[in-house]
């Protein structure tokens, strides 16, 4: 077994532009091994030789472990270089790391996914799983908000999900010019319009921290218990093993104890600036 600090070599087999600053890469292991098992919500450390390593959530289908898929937003030095990678290029991969979305805990109840911006990517494996095992869940709701129509991630997939008769899928943007016939407004506004049984709902929320806080508050107002809400946190991760302390968040390490946390656990910390 490879030491968790040692990256394994993977080749990029496919690269797709999602939005002006976001792209998706599909990877295959260079040693020919065929499967990469992970749980929805987990992340990998992706390494560009000579540039550095970044934590990126896995955004592919957990039931199709033949390839590894990451959706990446180009925001820093390493991810900007990653945006230039093409098929055949090589990256280092360590992982999978971290906790996962409570997809088993959610069985038999309603499930609501609330995603903001690129936060849809870490939720996508859980959405794939729930839709693949649709009969095990009651109502399924996906609420997605982003900045503008051009920033909508996985637009075709959202259309496909919305066309299903067994899921409520709603998309909204914060700003829109003429020509956009969809919803305009913040994602929290969609919560009042969704149909679900609050007491029997598991909520999985991913997006900017402010958006997650407001979403959790709105869901609480609807009656969803804090213990049934889960959020995915992001901090500067280095070792991904809970050793270096870079991603310490109060008494927890985001890389080891998270990134997915129960909202009930983090709620007291989210309002503290110093944490």
């Amino acid at each position, binding site marked *: 077994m490879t030491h968790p600090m040692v990256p394994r070599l993977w080749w990029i087999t496919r690269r797709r532009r999602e939005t002006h600053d976001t792209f998706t890469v599909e990877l295959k292991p260079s040693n020919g091994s065929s499967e990469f098992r992970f749980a929805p919500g987990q992340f990998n450390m992706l390494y560009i030789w000579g540039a550095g390593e970044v934590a990126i959530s896995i955004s592919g289908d957990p039931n199709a472990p033949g390839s590894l898929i990451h959706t990446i937003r180009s925001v820093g030095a390493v991810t900007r270089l990653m945006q230039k990678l093409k098929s055949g290029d090589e990256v280092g991969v360590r992982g999978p790391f971290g906790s996962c979305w409570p997809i088993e805990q959610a069985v038999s109840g309603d499930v609501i996914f609330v995603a903001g*911006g690129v936060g849809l990517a870490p939720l996508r494996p859980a959405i794939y799983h729930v839709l693949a095992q649709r009969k095990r869940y009651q109502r399924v709701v996906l609420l997605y908000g982003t900045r503008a129509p051009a920033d909508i991630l996985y637009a075709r997939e959202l259309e496909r999900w919305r066309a299903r008769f067994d899921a409520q899928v709603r998309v909204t943007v914060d700003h829109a*010019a*003429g020509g*956009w016939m969809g*919803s305009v407004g913040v994602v929290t*506004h969609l919560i009042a*319009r969704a149909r679900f049984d609050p007491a029997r709902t598991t909520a999985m929320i991913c997006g900017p921290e402010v*958006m997650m806080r407001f979403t959790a508050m709105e869901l609480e107002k609807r009656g969803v218990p804090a213990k049934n809400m889960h959020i995915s946190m992001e901090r500067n991760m280095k070792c991904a093993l809970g050793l270096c302390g870079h991603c310490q968040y109060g008494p927890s390490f985001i890389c080891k104890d998270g990134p997915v946390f129960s909202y009930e656990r983090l709620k007291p910390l989210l309002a503290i600036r110093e944490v």
Partner: protein
Amino acid sequence: METETLEGILAEHPFAKGLKDDYVQLMMGCASNVRFEAGQFIFHGGEDANQFYLIRDGKVSLEVFAAQRGPLTILTLEGGDVLGWSWLFPPYRWKFDARALERTRALGLDATCLRTKCEADHDLGYELLKRFVLVVEQRLQAARFQLLNVYS
């Protein structure tokens, strides 16, 4: 075939949820069913705010027209939402344009009629104002959230 009464529609709208029967009756006296086709303007900024609307279904875009940029959508409203609060405050004129994005059904409430009833019955006025303040609070929070540009 079951016929929906104006009273039933009003009482079931989230805005009027829990409102005393007497107040529902008073409001009903100022209400009428209205329908807008896709693309139809409900009001334009600058016009007199003679009505407000409790949207039953459909979708309405609240927008402002900017030279060289065209119409900019501020917010879209759907079934269960309230459209318009400019009727509450002088000079009672709309600030933005409202346009139906799809066929929209709503209850239109006559502003002069309702203001007169609120002046005559301050309990009704206070009850309605509390409900409008909640709408304003939610829209203000949303506007602040939008200003934060959290997805940038």
